[in-house]
């Protein structure tokens, strides 16, 4: 009888042996009951392992996708390149500054640094992007430990070939992950940008059309604001605060925003405000659902309408999950199917998944 083939049995059952090795093993197995039994047992090990299940804490898979989206959102720049944001800032300046100067109204002193920071942010942070090429992928949030940990791995213990493998799809991505975390203010500003990005996809081409004017306009605004007087109330009320869009763009009248999306005055702010609401109870979720539906009724063809319809469904599904009322679920199913029948529905996959996730 030939020598035992134990060290090759694992590769044999995986069909990873060369033909000659395989033939040798098979020859041995025909005459060695011990090794043949080991083949069966190793297969059984795999079978037992495959039959084992795992458990995650209750609700983990319900929230994970949203958590990941939230981690990606704050610095999501891809759909709205930095130069487009700078353009938005420039447009704001072009509109606000002459009016402010003509009317003799100037921002209050406390508004200066913040406004200047907001406007200068894209240019200061990514001068090349503003000047030429928009960044291709969003970088990651400052939240969580991932960036530091990944940065450490980049330096130390990640195997070289593993890096090559993972980098094959995108080395730039790893660099983005390893980048230093932005300060909190920047993250907030980036969150606002991300909300714009998600909400205002249709706005991008319009903004892009006037791109070349952006960097100069942004610079001009910074200078203007630094030179303005001190005691008047701000033209751009801080009431808009965090709800104001990424470039600090005030809710200007539609006529003053040529080329931008056909959004009714205040719609952007309302969209962001609703986006920031989290339902803690079924009642909260129903109220949020109703608010989203009201939003859609006010602006059924607006740039946020599609997202708002989906968010209404999500809020409805949350109401069902939190409260367990069949009416809530029935409403989501009905409205979800209505959404799927819409010719202009942009997120059907998401709604299908949402419907599939409803408990029977």
């Amino acid at each position, binding site marked *: 009888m030939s020598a035992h083939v134990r060290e090759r049995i694992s590769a044999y059952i995986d069909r*990873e042996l060369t033909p000659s090795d395989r033939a040798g093993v098979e020859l041995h197995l025909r005459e060695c009951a011990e090794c043949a039994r080991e083949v069966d047992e190793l297969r059984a090990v795999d079978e*037992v392992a495959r039959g084992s299940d795992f458990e995650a804490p209750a609700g983990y*898979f319900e929230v994970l996708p949203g958590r990941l*989206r939230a981690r990606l959102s704050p610095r999501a720049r891809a759909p709205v390149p930095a130069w487009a944001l700078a353009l938005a800032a420039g447009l704001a300046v072009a509109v606000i500054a002459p009016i402010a100067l003509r009317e003799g109204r100037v921002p209050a002193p406390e508004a200066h640094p913040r406004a200047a920071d907001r406007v200068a942010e894209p240019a200061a942070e990514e001068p090349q992007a503003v000047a030429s090429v928009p960044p291709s992928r969003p970088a990651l949030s400052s939240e969580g430990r991932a960036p530091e940990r990944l940065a450490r791995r980049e330096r130390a213990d990640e195997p070289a070939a593993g890096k090559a493998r993972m980098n094959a*799809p995108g080395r730039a991505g790893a660099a983005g992950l390893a980048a230093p975390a932005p300060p909190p203010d920047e993250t907030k500003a980036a969150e606002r940008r991300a909300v714009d990005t998600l909400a205002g996809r249709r706005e991008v081409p319009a903004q892009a059309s006037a791109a070349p004017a952006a960097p100069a306009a942004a610079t001009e605004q910074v200078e203007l604001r630094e030179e303005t007087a001190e005691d008047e109330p701000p033209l751009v009320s801080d009431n808009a605060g965090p709800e104001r869009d990424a470039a600090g763009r005030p809710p200007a009248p539609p006529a003053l925003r040529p080329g931008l999306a056909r959004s009714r005055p205040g719609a952007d702010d309302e969209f962001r405000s609703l986006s920031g609401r989290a339902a803690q109870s079924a009642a909260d979720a129903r109220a949020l659902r109703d608010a989203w539906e009201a939003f859609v009724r006010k602006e059924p063809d607006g740039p946020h309408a599609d997202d708002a319809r989906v968010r209404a469904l999500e809020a409805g599904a949350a109401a069902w999950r939190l409260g367990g009322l069949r009416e809530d679920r029935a409403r989501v199913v009905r409205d979800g199917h209505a959404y799927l029948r819409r010719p202009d529905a942009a997120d059907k*996959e998401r709604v*299908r998944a949402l*419907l599939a996730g409803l408990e029977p």
Partner: protein
Amino acid sequence: MRALPPEVDITTPPARGAVDPGESDLLAKAQGGNLFAFEEIVRRYQRRVYGTALRIVRRHDLADDVVQDAFLRAYQALGRFDRQRPFGPWICRIAANLAVNHVRSPESREQALPESLAETPTAEPGPLGAVLESEGREALDRAMDRLSPEQRAVFVLRVFEELSYQEIADALAISPGTVMSRLSRARARLREALTPYLGVAMRRAGGGPA
């Protein structure tokens, strides 16, 4: 699998190795920066990726870190992902690589790993087969705990993801020969621990040479 509400034409995740056209659309949207599309991709693959990570790192909090890192990395690299290739094996390879590094990291070593998942309450006593099965699962857990993270990674990628040795080697930055030897040792240790419980599984697997 949950029952679907009526009228829903839901696209289920593709079989391993297959490319689903609907998924390709989702990936295209995600590559364009659509976070909702990416969120849907996460929704489809999160259990599979979590399973890969948990089986290697053996603890939920670490698995959660790995899963998030894996998806975030995947998003970062999505621009160059070939949509003609299946997403599942790709993201699982990323997760396995991160998982091994994660467990190997000093930060992780400082935290004592649990003795065994068998410390969790056992199932209610039932028929003999069920008891044996439950004991077998616990024995498997203990044996998996005793494997090195590197052994667990090759075992998970082979047995659960059905990757080839070359694919595993690429994912973990090791040679195919190392894959072969680690897998052989991992299986030998698991076999040793599971011998009393292998009968049912052997009948299920059919036995006999390949």
